[in-house]
């Protein structure tokens, strides 16, 4: 299976994504430069973390206008799975693939540590290897991860069961203490309507090797491989 990682000036998790995709999918991912208007046919696209365009104007705003993002939007609408991690999530909201916005963390500080996420549903191609309502441990590293959506959008996300992950404690319980950035309703990740686009602030690609402290991220990529092979 072929995969692609989009590379913007200022991306810094593109290589982590590359390593994660290679470890799970096998083949060498295509690294696609932001200025390209096209890319080969691929089965899966990652929009990686980092500080695309130096976070100028708003995190993700400039990247959303880049030539390659028009193609990513087209592919996503055609059903190709797209995973936006951290800055990638910000870019997906700015490009209109996902609703809402990521604002400055409520505590104003850059937060870099492991958090727990509750698996809200495990019947999507991204989460089939996880158990619903259990907690996994995944690192975050962001300044603008405070998810916001207006009341109507939030109601829609809940009604359509499109919340992927919520920040929780180690036992899966939601609390303000376990919410690292003030995200509305503890939201750490959301799906698009067709469930083929996932945006999340935490970094599953950073926790896939025991030598790096854990492997809770592995199941996300393995689940994708299984779903796409089926």
């Amino acid at each position, binding site marked *: 299976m072929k995969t692609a990682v989009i590379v913007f000036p200022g991306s810094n998790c593109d290589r982590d994504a590359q390593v994660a995709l290679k470890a799970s999918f096998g083949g060498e991912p295509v690294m696609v430069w932001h200025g390209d208007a096209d890319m080969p046919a691929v089965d899966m696209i990652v929009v990686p973390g980092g500080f695309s365009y130096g976070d100028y*104007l*708003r995190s993700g*705003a400039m990247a959303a*206008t880049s030539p390659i993002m028009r193609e990513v939007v087209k592919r996503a609408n055609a059903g190709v799975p797209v995973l936006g991690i951290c800055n990638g999530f910000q870019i997906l*909201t*700015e490009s209109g693939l996902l*609703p*809402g*916005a990521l*604002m*400055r*963390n*409520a*505590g*104003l500080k850059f937060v870099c540590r492991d958090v727990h996420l509750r698996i809200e549903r495990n019947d999507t191609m991204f989460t089939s290897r996880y158990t619903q309502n259990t907690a996994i441990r995944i690192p975050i590293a962001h300044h603008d991860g*405070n998810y*916001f*959506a*207006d009341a109507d959008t939030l109601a829609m996300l809940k009604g359509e069961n499109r919340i992927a992950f919520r920040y929780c404690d180690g036992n899966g319980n939601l609390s303000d203490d376990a919410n690292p950035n*003030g995200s509305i309703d503890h939201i750490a990740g959301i799906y698009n309507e067709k469930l083929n686009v996932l945006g999340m602030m935490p970094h599953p690609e950073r926790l896939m090797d025991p030598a790096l402290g854990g492997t809770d991220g592995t199941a996300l990529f393995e689940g994708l491989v299984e779903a796409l092979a089926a």
Partner: protein
Amino acid sequence: MKAKVHVMLKNGVLDPQGKAVENALGSLGFDGVQDVRQGKVIELTLNETDIETARTNVAQMCEKLLANTVIENYAIEIEG
């Protein structure tokens, strides 16, 4: 022709930076500040000479890029 765009977080959207500035003002002894909201100003120099056309164009720029209307409002000031 010059245009100034003021981008502000919508009312009801928490502005943590404004809150921090408000607290800092209080700790400096400036009492009586009820609320602080922080935004940004973007200045544009345009070739356009017609005020109404300029306003329309800048509004489109705001909708497409300069503001994120999920969380922000914008106001346009045209200076002849």
